[in-house]
């Protein structure tokens, strides 16, 4: 059985755990979700009570296993039910509207931050005690700051006061989303500041991690041997140390994706960016439980998929792993 297949099975197990947690949360939590929704929306008629119960799966006829099974069937058909707060819309259509925004912006910003942080970490690790190494504690301060705090200050200073960037939102109001230049340029313009804040807030973490892996790698005998052979520094750094240090860094990337997603949720709330994080906030504030649960599942599945991609990259980047893949 190849490594990738085994990882796929692991992620399927993780996905099943997430699905199961998601199924049991409304049933295990104190309080009555249906009651909460009814009191939130006074225009709902009492006859909606049964409909809400059916939608949330509480008070459903049949045993809990029966409910569990029909829940799994529904999710596998991407049927997350009807939305409560924006009533006739289905949850799936709301998700489809918001996901592209999040993936485009957060994906790009994260890859940029990872690349910059890794490059800086290589330099800091190689020239230990150099200036980069010494500004690291300062960067940690940015890292320790709550992300939304930093983002709100930058938003106030750079967008509201200095007018360098548009204030929040995904695009200029009044434009009709579509594949025309007006809209695309406006969307890019609106994404610059959020992307910048993500990079600022996360670059130090990648840098510190890469620096430490570099320090450990540089201590290895094969790096000493490469230097003893008289190879030029740049060759030792890039071909010997960095290539090996990148593997743990990539693994760290996979494990950190959960944090990346968390940052993205907060970012969208700060910038009123029309992605899935803002949708989640709206769902929470309006007690829109079906939407909340669907968003949790979508985010979790996205993280699992991204992790799988990282695993595939590791297999291709690591000749040892490739050799073992072939040998099986």
């Amino acid at each position, binding site marked *: 059985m190849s490594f990738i297949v085994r990882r796929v099975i692991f992620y399927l197990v993780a996905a099943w755990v997430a699905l199961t947690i998601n199924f049991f949360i409304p049933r295990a939590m104190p309080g009555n979700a249906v009651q909460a929704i009814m009191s939130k929306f006074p225009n709902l008629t009492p006859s909606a009570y049964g409909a809400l119960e059916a939608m949330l799966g509480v008070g459903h006829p049949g045993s809990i296993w029966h409910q569990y099974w029909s829940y799994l069937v529904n999710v596998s058909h991407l049927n997350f039910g009807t939305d409560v707060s924006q009533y006739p819309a289905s949850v799936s259509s709301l998700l489809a509207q918001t996901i592209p925004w999040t993936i485009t912006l957060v994906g790009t910003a994260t890859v940029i931050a990872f690349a910059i942080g890794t490059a800086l970490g290589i330099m800091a690790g190689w020239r*230990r005690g150099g200036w980069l190494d010494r500004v690291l504690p300062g960067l940690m301060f940015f890292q320790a700051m709550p992300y939304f705090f930093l983002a709100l200050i930058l938003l106030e200073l750079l967008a509201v006061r200095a007018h360098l960037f548009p204030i929040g939102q995904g695009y200029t109001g009044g434009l009709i989303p579509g594949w025309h230049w007006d809209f695309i340029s406006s969307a890019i313009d609106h994404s610059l500041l959020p992307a910048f804040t993500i990079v600022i807030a996360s670059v130090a973490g990648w840098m510190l991690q890469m620096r430490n892996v570099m320090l450990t790698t540089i201590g290895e005998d094969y790096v000493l041997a490469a230097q003893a052979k008289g190879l030029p520094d740049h060759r030792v750094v890039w071909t010997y140390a960095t290539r090996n240090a990148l593997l743990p860094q990539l693994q760290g990337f996979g494990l950190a994706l959960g944090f990346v997603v968390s940052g993205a949720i907060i970012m969208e709330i700060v910038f009123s960016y029309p992605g899935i994080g803002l949708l989640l906030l709206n769902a929470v504030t309006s007690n829109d439980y079906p939407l909340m649960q669907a968003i949790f599942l979508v985010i979790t599945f996205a993280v699992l998929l991204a992790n799988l991609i990282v695993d595939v990259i590791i297999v291709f980047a690591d000749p040892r792993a490739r050799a073992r893949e072939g040998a099986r």
Partner: protein
Amino acid sequence: MTVALPVSAESATVPETPQQLGLWRRLPTKAKVGAVMMGVFILAAIIGPLLTPYDPAFQNPAPALSLHSPDAAHLLGTTQSGQDVLSQLLVGIRLTLELALSVGVIATVLSVVVGVAAAYLGGVWDEVLSLATNVFLVIPALPLLIILLGYLPQKGQLATIVVLSGLGWPWGARLIRAQTLAIRGRDFVAASRETGEPTWRILAVEIVPNEVSLIAASFVNTVLYAIGASVALAFIGLADLTSWSLGSMLYWAQSQQALQLGAWWWFIPPGLAVALIGTALVLLNTGIDELGNPRLRKAGGTGVGAWHGLRPTDPTPVLEAAPPPRGRLASFLHSFSRSSLLDEHTGPGGTP
């Protein structure tokens, strides 16, 4: 996010017989700075609420005291409704640290139990616990926290502590399991097993004390995670917003547009306090990390060749003990973990 990435997960080594007396002197400067900063905040949390000049919730009706900039009477100014920011800050530091330290203790105990049990019991136990750890590592925590708290009718301090602890243990458990695996094969453990010591004693006296630096690091990391997550959750509104924590202060400052109104003294102090506490913890953690992993320690001298000076003083590296023999079910389960890829070529002798 504010949660620091755990550093050098795989390279933790057993600390070299720590001398209790000289510990403070042997601490790296970073750790000392972090410890002092943290001490100041803990002191503020303990005695701060006794010193608050005003009741943090008291709304002064005088219109002149709405959004008053800092002066002698109100050292950090007032909020929109005339509440004293300094008083709120002092109470807020206490509540936030109380929450974060409780989560740190509970989650760290959980991770020690899970990590040590997995590694020491081995076999199917290990595989089941490791699988659970890895699954909870890969499921993103914040969205799960949001829906859990979203369903709770009361989002008080206790509920937040329970939920954050319940999701905060996997990082530590993973590291502690790896460390325990390395230690359990060593001679002194084998010796005490031979002399017939009961398992609980081997665990409590031989194994856990050798992991103190790792447990401390994972405690600090968990506290960091708890502060970051609780502040973020409060900012979203998923907290008890009637009490004064640093997170709920930020929530109110933001929702009443402190920044747009130019009231920096209302918005900056709580955020800065979180940032400083976070920096202190990161410094503390880097210091602990350097104590345990000499390669990260500064070797004097700078430049490309600096590490040459380090090598002769390197302690003998702790080789990963050979993994315990696995049964068929156990090795089947193990083959699903990411680390199975690394198993075969990081053993002693498995040079790249």
